[in-house]
């Protein structure tokens, strides 16, 4: 075998060495490969195919990665054929690489990955999304940390309509944020490290992120889920934007946009206006109250008995807001679901109900009136039963008396005690599984300067506000009541942006 190939396959070493040694070896190996590539550029360019056949990407990931990097930077690789081979090498690599090795060379891995989804177009978007999704999950199978690649990828997938391949990635709950200074003294190749300890700007497996990028990621995830009609996931994604932590009275535009979509998706998902979680920051709440008011009124009209209110509110927001914010289709869907939710909610009141009564008790928000005929009700109910949104059956008595809908018990209601306890156990295990995450977070935060100074500042601010509050409360009744009114006035004059 060519001695040069021996250099490329010299790493990884045989098992039995500790992490520290492994890391040292990897760095020396990377240095050797770099020298080899520099001295044999011609050879690599010409016989890349043969060389890479010998270098299995699943085993010799580090060497393979460095050759890929070299090929991508080579000026000669612009022909169609070269493009295709390069794409094929990259696909093989990203589907098989050994995550432990590339942790030791994060910057190179990131650079090559960026090429996979760059505008240079080595891959069609559909392939790029699938490949990068697989690569990111290979790097961190828990998918619990967001990286700059996540942000770019979700944008590409949404803009090119390739959401399907992205789902395995964006369905994983993000818990960690990459931050500088998160690295530990342990070598990066230690497989027991939690994701934020090796995926951070220091290891260069991700770039540093901004709050806007994180918000944008969740927002786009929400849009992707809407496209797939995965309402629960879309709702959660927008809720992450809405409740995003802020300080010093900050609130981002993305948050207000997400708030509007969150309301609409909430209506589709639960049939009633969602309530803001306690974790929403005060500043955001105030801004939502003014800027999201038309949507809030629309949501409140959803609760009304008659569809007329909802139609009126729809017209109010449809003239200006909806088209500007790209919510027209979503709001129309909400209108279409109004009657469906009215029918579903009848379950709480009736065990069975005649179709005529349904016609009388419910209204279509698309027309603002009850359905014209019992047949139309029949059709709607059947479609709801068919798509699973309604657990029920239409009974047609043989004696010719009118047909009626019987509500069947929902899966949870029909559950036996054994099934119920099995379900509870499953959830409990999920909660138990949080323990190591909490422990890891706790450990890291306890020594994180940023977090400690933040916590101290929070406590200080809270104490200060408490003190101010006491002062104003003790300042005589007429002054304090006047003060409140004045504040309210200030709020009502908020300019729209």
């Amino acid at each position: 075998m060519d001695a040069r190939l021996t250099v490329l396959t010299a790493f990884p070493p045989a098992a039995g060495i500790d992490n520290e040694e492994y890391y040292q070896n990897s760095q020396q190996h990377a240095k050797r490969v770099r020298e080899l590539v520099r001295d044999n550029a011609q050879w690599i360019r010409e016989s890349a195919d043969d060389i890479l056949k010998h270098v299995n990407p699943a085993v010799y990931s580090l060497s393979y990665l460095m050759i890929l990097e070299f090929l991508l930077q080579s000026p000669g690789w612009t022909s169609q054929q070269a493009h295709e081979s390069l794409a094929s090498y990259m696909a093989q690599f990203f589907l098989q690489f050994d995550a432990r090795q590339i942790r030791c060379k994060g910057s190179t891995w990131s650079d090559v990955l960026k090429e996979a989804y760059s505008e240079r177009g080595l891959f069609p978007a559909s392939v790029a999304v699938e490949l990068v999704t697989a690569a990111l999950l290979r790097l961190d199978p828990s998918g619990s940390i967001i990286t700059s690649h996540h942000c770019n990828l979700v944008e590409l997938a949404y803009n090119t309509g390739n959401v399907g391949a992205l789902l395995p990635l964006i369905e994983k709950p993000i818990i960690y944020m990459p931050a500088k200074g998160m690295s530990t003294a342990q070598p990066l190749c230690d497989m027991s490290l939690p994701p934020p300890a090796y995926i951070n700007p220091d290891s260069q497996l991700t770039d540093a992120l901004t709050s806007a990028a994180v918000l944008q990621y969740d927002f786009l995830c929400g849009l992707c889920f809407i496209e797939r009609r995965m309402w629960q996931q879309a709702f959660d994604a927008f809720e992450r934007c809405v409740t995003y932590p802020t300080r010093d009275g900050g609130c981002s535009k993305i948050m207000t946009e997400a708030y509007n979509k969150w309301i609409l998706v909430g209506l589709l998902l639960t049939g009633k206006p969602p309530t803001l979680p306690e974790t929403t920051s005060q500043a955001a709440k105030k801004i939502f109250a003014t800027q999201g008011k038309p949507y809030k009124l629309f949501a409140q009209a959803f609760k009304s008995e008659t569809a007329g209110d909802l139609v009126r509110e729809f017209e109010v927001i449809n003239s200006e807001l909806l088209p500007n914010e790209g919510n027209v289709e979503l709001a129309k869907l909400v209108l279409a679901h109004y009657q469906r939710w009215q029918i579903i909610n009848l379950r709480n009141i009736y065990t069975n109900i005649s179709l005529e009564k349904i016609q009388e008790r419910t209204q279509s928000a698309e027309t603002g009136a009850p359905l014209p005929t019992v047949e139309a009700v029949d059709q709607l109910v059947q479609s709801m039963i068919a798509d699973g949104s309604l657990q029920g059956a239409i009974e047609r008595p043989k004696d010719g008396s009118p047909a009626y809908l019987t509500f069947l018990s929902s899966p949870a209601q029909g559950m036996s005690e054994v099934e119920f306890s099995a379900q509870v156990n499953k959830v409990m295990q999920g909660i138990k599984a949080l323990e190591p995450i909490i422990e890891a977070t706790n450990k890291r935060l306890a020594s994180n300067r940023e977090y400690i100074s933040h916590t101290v500042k929070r406590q200080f601010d809270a104490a200060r506000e408490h003190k101010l509050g006491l002062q104003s409360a003790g300042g005589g009744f007429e002054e304090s009541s006047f003060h409140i009114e004045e504040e309210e006035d200030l709020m009502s004059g908020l300019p729209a942006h």
Partner: protein
Amino acid sequence: MDDRKLAFFTAIEDQGGVIVKGRTRFERLFHIGRSSVPLCVDALKAAVQEAKAGSDILRYQMAVNSLFQAAPNEPEALLDKAWMESKEKENRDTTAHLQAELQGYKNNLIKESIRMGNEDLGKHFEAIGDVEAAMDSFWKMRTEVSSTEQLVDLGKLLVRVAIERRDWKSIGNHLKPLNSVNDSDPKAKALKTYSKIANGIAALGQERYKEAAFCFVEASSGVPPEIYNQIASPNDVAIYGGLLALATMDRHELQANLLDNDSFREFLQREPHIRRAITQFVNGRYAACIEILESYRPDYLLDIYLQKHVPKLYADIRTKSIVQYLKPFSCVRLDTMQKAFNGPGPSIEDELFTMIKDGKLNARIDAINKSKALQTLENYEKQALDRIRRMNIMAADLEVKGSRKPGGMNDIPFSMTTDDTVSLA
């Protein structure tokens, strides 16, 4: 006032001062005149008389105009121009005189006289119907107040004007001096009752029904009605307290706070039908309770403070009755219920439909307890993850930041910090 009415009012007054005094008397008469067909002419005539006995020309005109529209042939339906002119002149003179007097006190810097001057002027403004000016004058008395008693009197004046202006929110503040009177003070009990009743009216005006109910129920019947009859009569206390309690309290609370409350029982003696309605409710005879209340609905619609709230209170009482009625049953036939709750109002099915929908009635809810339990657990997991995520965002210094400087003096109410970030202070 003609002889018959005079005799009537005197007779009533002899029974223990049922009739309210002061300016609300006109308001009540005028309100009845405009709300009730059978009582219209008589009430408006009485209102005209009442207005003419005072100095408020605008009220007189309003009453005469209304009477003119209802019964143009009545002698009282014509404006007494001479009276108006002389009254107007008299009012003007009195205003000028009192203002000059006050100015004199101010020049001499006699605190007590300034206070009294302001009080006289305020009372005069109140009498001629300029409540804003009256409020101003009373308000100016604050700085010259030198004793607790004066502070209490001022509070009462302010409450009276605030009630006339329907400024419910400020009443609680005006009552503070009354509430802070020491219990050892012989007047404390009377002041507490005054304060309870005024607070009750204010809470009623703001639709805080339960709070209002407790205020009235806690009023003491031992206090002579003269103390509070400028704002309400003891009969009012019984009616307001009884209705509000029926609408907001459960059977045990009604028993404990009303029927077993010796002081409030005294009030209830004056309105025995309210007591009967409460007793029926407590004994579980809801239909009978509702029947009694329905028969008095027209009367309550004539009350200046209660009118606006009668439909809501009655609906609440009915809803509560239905809920209480259903408690012992797991299943009730709709026509049995229809019989029990016969009477005006929507059909019982529609009513139950709305009640179950609004969550006032827990029918069928038990069936979904299991799914709720599961949901709670799942939510717990979700929330835990969310909290960890938030801590990590803060630790990575990735929060959305505003422009407000903590502790800064130049807090701006609203500002755009960057293209992306909107900031609120």
